[in-house]
């Protein structure tokens, strides 16, 4: 028996050995870039313990591989790492091309798995907590850290505006037609569906267009590009929404050529810090894709994010102190014992998209795409007509106002009222607003509703017995119809060259209007100008208060009806672009250019009584030619080192939202409106070695002739006031560093630094108008802010983190951030001749109009008191530096091919309370006592701020198979 067993084992052993020896194969392939399918030289291809570098043509080979499934991993500078499962089943298997995307975000095994970046869907633009720097959170070592870790303090890459980054979805540009900002809110909450992204950094040429100076992100949100399988996750947090549920299924490309994907999510509830910012946000995503044959492929994608959520308003430090919370939200009030937020964002803007891919040969790729965005986007707010300001933090309700007025007794009495009745004083009293509306009726002594001049007596009769709402919740709409068409062609000329180019076309029509969301217990609203009505003294003058003279049936309006203003913003943009890439040994050159033609105009749908001849119909069509010229030169002496030099020159059309002095009311174009000019230089160095992965860069950028429209509600005049600025110049320069390095075993150190200087370099012009008067309040005056700093972003941001991953898939991290050189957003009004007129002869200001404030003070030879007063009035507030510590823990279990995991992040462990942003109030305080004897003299109103949330958590539990 023993002999038999020995013989059997020997026989089996020999047999296995022979079998093994006879089943040995090899694999070969070429690593190419997705961008032009150019070969990638010196890419690292690893298979188990083996590792090879690709040749100049991108090729590699592994030999003597046993039959079976193996995994090869590919890494290359500037590209997204990738891994491929290969079945070795023949002596030499040719994988053909392995395509690497340029810095693709695949998120297959990042440190904290997908939980690291899910926080990006909290959409808090302009509110207390910032939007992320970029949702792409790319593999670039600097961007990966800065994109997330710097976002709590509103960090913006290099200080640039959001509209400098170009966002694409499935290759179609998805920036807002009227502002240029990325339209992240259109797919917010669809993290799984939009996770696969490819990004280029800074001035590099994008994969779907030339891009600008702040990188490009292309979201690959179609079925074949999404990670196959089923995923579900549940989140609870204390710093954004309370809960998030998300589930996604992706089939992957099936044998029949179909791929499909669906995703649903819900974000619900509020947070621990701000009252009334509850989320009621849902999201859906559907995509189907058909590979017709090897040459043709079609994808259909449809998604939307029906959302309603509350917004926070900044508050003065005084109001914050009185309310007892850094996160006091003046938008909130009490209604029947329940908390109600007057300012709710409510939107549902679905996007439908079709993509077509034509690949006639392996060197040519042609894509075509069309998308359509529609739906509605509203932002509610309290509105009132001939009634008292209902806001709890209205300046007269704060003690400091009475202090300024020289009435300390009243100040003290008001302070006492706040202390004793905080709960009543800090909220909008919705019950009271309802009761005002209940009793608003001529039967109770009110004046009869003014007759429409074109209707006559009918109006009174039509509202007889009804209550006229004095207070309402209005909804300001920006409803877009946005059609985009794209054609793109790529051709690999040789192993060293490729060209890519395309045509983009966009037609956008955005309707701006207000509608009545809630009459707050009343029966109707009168669609007339609140303030203009005051100036009416004769029947024949009534029409100046009428908001729309073209119709009479929209004078008495109810819930859902439009009122106030209604106009279209039309824009048409055509772009022709192309890029050429050349690789010569260790050198790469990319040249890219884009020419664009933009035309936009305003079409007034209301003929406003105050602007009878200049409000209805089309404005002049504004035409602008734009271009982008870009050159990138890269030197890669080996697979570890890379140096890139870039230069960009741009001329960009202004955006519609900045082009008219008062777009709500009239067709008047901002004086001096012109194209903005951008010039940017960038040098970057990358080093990748087993002991460190780093990137360092330096940049210098100038903007000239930017335009900006600032609109704010002027409660003195009960109307929007508009400041149209032109000729804004600014300069940005600085350095960036990002690195990640292992220390010991599974412990690694990472860090990022962004140190810059962003400064205004001109004194722009501004024109001020108000929506309810034909007068131009300030005509083309100077704003003296030359030398002041670009606001609302830290100009210094540093990060250092420790990351640890155990062998049993436990992840730990701790990181610290430091922020400095943060400045408050400036109000131009404080820096004008008019504001300074109480202290200085304005002729002296004018005589040195190109000077800075300090020059003006010196040249005018002001006395010490006047100089100090001007400095106080014009000074820009710098926030204190902030230091923040965060920590994370996570674990993943692998159970029979399925994954179950969690991650928990504790943010702001140090409970740092610091200002993250805010603004200066758009009003001047007139010193009454001084005015009585010596003329007008202005001082500031207190600024309003947002504060960083204290210690908060984000817990994500996820499941995949």
């Amino acid at each position, binding site marked *: 028996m023993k002999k038999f067993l020995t013989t059997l084992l020997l026989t089996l052993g020999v047999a296995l050995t022979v079998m093994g020896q006879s089943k040995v194969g090899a694999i070969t392939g070429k690593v190419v870039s997705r961008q032009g399918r150019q070969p990638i030289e010196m890419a690292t291809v690893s298979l188990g313990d083996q590792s090879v570098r690709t040749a100049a043509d991108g090729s590699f080979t592994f030999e003597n591989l046993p039959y079976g499934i193996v995994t090869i991993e590919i890494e290359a500078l500037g590209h997204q790492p990738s891994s491929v499962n290969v079945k070795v089943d023949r002596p030499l298997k040719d994988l053909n091309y392995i395509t690497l995307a340029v810095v693709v975000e695949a998120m297959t095994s990042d440190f904290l798995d997908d939980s690291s970046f899910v926080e990006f869907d909290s959409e808090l633009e302009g509110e207390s907590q910032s939007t992320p720097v970029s949702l792409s959170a790319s593999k670039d070592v600097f961007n990966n850290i800065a994109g997330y870790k710097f976002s709590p303090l509103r960090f913006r890459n290099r200080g640039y505006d959001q509209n400098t980054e170009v966002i694409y979805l499935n290759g179609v540009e998805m920036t807002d037609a009227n502002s240029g900002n990325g339209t992240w809110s259109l797919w917010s909450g669809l993290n799984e569906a939009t996770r696969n992204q490819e990004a280029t950094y800074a001035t590099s040429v994008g994969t779907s267009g030339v891009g600008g100076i702040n990188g490009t992100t292309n979201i690959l949100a179609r079925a074949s590009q999404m990670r196959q399988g089923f995923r579900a996750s549940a989140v609870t947090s204390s710093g954004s929404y309370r809960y998030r549920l998300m589930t996604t299924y992706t089939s992957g490309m099936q044998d029949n050529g179909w791929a499909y994907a669906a995703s649903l999510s819900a974000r619900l509830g509020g947070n621990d810090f701000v009252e009334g910012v509850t989320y009621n946000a849902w999201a859906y995503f559907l995509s189907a894709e058909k590979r017709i044959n090897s040459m043709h492929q079609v994808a259909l994608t449809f998604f939307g994010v029906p959302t309603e959520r509350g917004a926070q308003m900044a508050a003065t430090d005084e109001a914050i102190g009185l309310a007892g919370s850094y996160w006091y939200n003046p938008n909130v009030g009490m209604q029947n014992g329940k908390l109600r937020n007057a300012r709710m964002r409510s939107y549902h803007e679905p996007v439908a998209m079709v993509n077509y891919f034509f690949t006639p040969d392996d060197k040519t790729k042609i894509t075509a795409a069309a998308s359509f965005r529609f739906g509605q986007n509203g932002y509610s707010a309290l509105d009132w007509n001939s009634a008292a300001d209902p806001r709890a933090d209205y300046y007269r309700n704060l003690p400091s106002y009475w202090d300024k007025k020289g009435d300390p007794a009243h100040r003290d*009495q008001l302070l006492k009222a706040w202390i004793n009745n905080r709960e009543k004083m800090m909220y909008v009293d919705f019950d009271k607003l309802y009761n005002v509306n209940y009793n608003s009726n001529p039967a*109770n002594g*009110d004046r009869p509703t003014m007759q429409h001049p074109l209707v006559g007596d009918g109006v009174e009769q039509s509202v007889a017995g009804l209550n006229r709402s004095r207070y309402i919740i209005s909804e300001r709409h920006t409803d877009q119809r946005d059609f985009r068409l794209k054609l793109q062609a790529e051709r690999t000329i040789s192993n060293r060259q490729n060209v890519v180019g395309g045509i983009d076309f966009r037609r956008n029509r955005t309707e701006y209007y207000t509608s009545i969301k809630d009459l707050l217990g009343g029966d109707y609203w009168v669609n007339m100008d609140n303030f203009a009505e005051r100036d009416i003294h004769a029947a024949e003058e009534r029409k100046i208060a009428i908001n729309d003279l073209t119709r009479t049936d929209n004078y008495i309006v109810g819930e859902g009806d439009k009122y106030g203003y209604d106009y279209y913003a039309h824009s048409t943009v055509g772009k022709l672009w192309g890029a050429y890439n050349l690789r010569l040994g260790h050198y790469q050159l990319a040249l890219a250019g884009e020419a664009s033609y933009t035309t936009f105009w305003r079409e007034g749908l209301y003929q406003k009584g105050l602007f009878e001849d200049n409000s209805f119909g089309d404005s002049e069509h504004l035409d602008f030619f734009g271009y982008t010229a870009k050159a990138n030169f890269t030197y890669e002496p080996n697979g570890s080192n890379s140096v890139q030099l870039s230069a960009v020159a741009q001329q960009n059309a202004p955006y519609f939202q900045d082009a008219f002095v008062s777009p709500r009311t009239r067709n008047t174009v901002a004086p001096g409106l012109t194209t903005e000019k951008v010039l940017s230089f960038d040098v970057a160095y990358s080093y990748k070695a087993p002991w460190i992965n780093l990137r360092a860069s330096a940049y210098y950028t100038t903007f000239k002739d930017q335009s900006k429209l600032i609109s704010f509600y002027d409660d003195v005049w009960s109307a929007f006031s508009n400041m149209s600025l032109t000729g804004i110049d600014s300069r940005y320069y600085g350095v960036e560093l990002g690195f990640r390095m292992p220390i010991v075993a599974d412990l690694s150190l990472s860090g990022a630094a962004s140190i810059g200087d962003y400064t205004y370099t001109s004194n722009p012009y501004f024109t001020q108008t108000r929506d309810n008067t034909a007068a131009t309040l300030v005509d083309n005056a100077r704003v003296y802010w030359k030398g002041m700093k670009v606001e609302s972003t830290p100009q210094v941001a540093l990060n250092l983190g420790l990351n640890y991953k155990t062998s049993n898939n436990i992840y730990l991290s701790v990181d610290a951030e430091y922020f400095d050189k943060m400045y408050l957003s400036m109000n131009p009004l404080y820096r004008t001749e008019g504001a300074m007129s109480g202290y200085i002869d304005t002729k002296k200001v004018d005589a040195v109009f190109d000077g800075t404030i300090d020059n003006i003070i010196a040249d005018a030879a002001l006395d010490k008191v006047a100089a100090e007063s001007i400095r106080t009035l014009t000074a820009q507030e710098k926030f204190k530096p902030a230091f923040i510590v965060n920590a994370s823990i996570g674990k993943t279990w692998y159970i029979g091919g399925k994954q179950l995991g969690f991650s928990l992040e504790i943010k702001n462990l140090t409970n740092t309370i610091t200002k993250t942003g805010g603004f200066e109030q758009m009003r001047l305080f007139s010193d009454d006592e001084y005015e009585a004897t010596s003329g007008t003299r202005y001082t500031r109103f207190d600024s309003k701020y947002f504060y960083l949330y204290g210690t908060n958590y984000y817990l994500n539990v996820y499941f995949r198979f």
Partner: protein
Amino acid sequence: MTLALVALTACEQQWDDVPARVPATDESMGAEYQYMTVNAFKDKYFYSVLPAPAGNVKSVTIPDKVYLKTKVISSDELGNTYRSIYLQDANGPQDGAIEIKVGKGSMYTIYKPGQIIYVKCDGLELGNYRWMLSLGGKSSEAKYSNGYIDIQTIIDEKILPGELAGLTAADTLVVNSSNVASIVGANDKQYLGTLCRFEGLESIWGTINADGYSSGDTFPSFLEQIVDTYTDYTWTGQPDEQGRYTLSPAHKDHPEGLPATWAYSYYNAEGKSNSYYGSALFAFGSSYPFLVRTSGYSRFALEPIPTDGEVVDMTAILCKYCSSSGGFTKYQLLLNSADDVVVK
């Protein structure tokens, strides 16, 4: 798909209307508060303890828990009253009226003409200003006996809206040439602040010199503050095609003339709004003059006043005013609306 449907229907939060506030009543004043008529209140806390000469500034903090039951007789809807409401005793004008300096704008939306208002007076300042008594808060300026309450929690605690009773004929004191002598003069304290219907008043333009008026007084006058002194202008001749009268002497800003209106409001060359009080003279014949004083901020400021010699019926609040030294005492009338002046 079900989830999507739920999403689409669940997004908009709906809010129910709130219950109407329960009107204050005598019962809701509580047993600790004692009711007084307005005139009894004025007598007890002011006239009997502070028999102030007209121009003096005196005030008293009401120490007792007393309440008034009143009716609103003013409206700031058209802007001629500002931050104050005038309350007349709910029994009628014979029991007096008083101004209450609330300190808020657009109060007509809360305190409706004819609405019953209960005023809890304890802690409020009862003061005079050149003859007129008012209730308010403490003043920080010595020239005023009291100030605006302004603080919402105190307003809500002290000024309590009751039922919407409406104004009736009984709420208006009829004043005509026959009874005017019994209302103005020595007995006027009883009626100051009340809502009166003046029947048969005559509009008088140009210089008058009657009943203590200096020879320099001219009416209508509303440019008095333009050069920081009381400057008199006379409208002469016939109106031009635009209805403007010649201003005499010509004003530097308006040599072309101006329409004779209740008050005046305009934007100057710098675009700054300027508003001036206007004074228009009415009298029963040449006796018993009353000045209708109107704010430049009122919405009827630029409506034309009755021309010289026209006779009108007018419903207005009876007020009295004097200089800081107590001289030049005049009766002033406060209009809620120009519609309350009807040319006969």
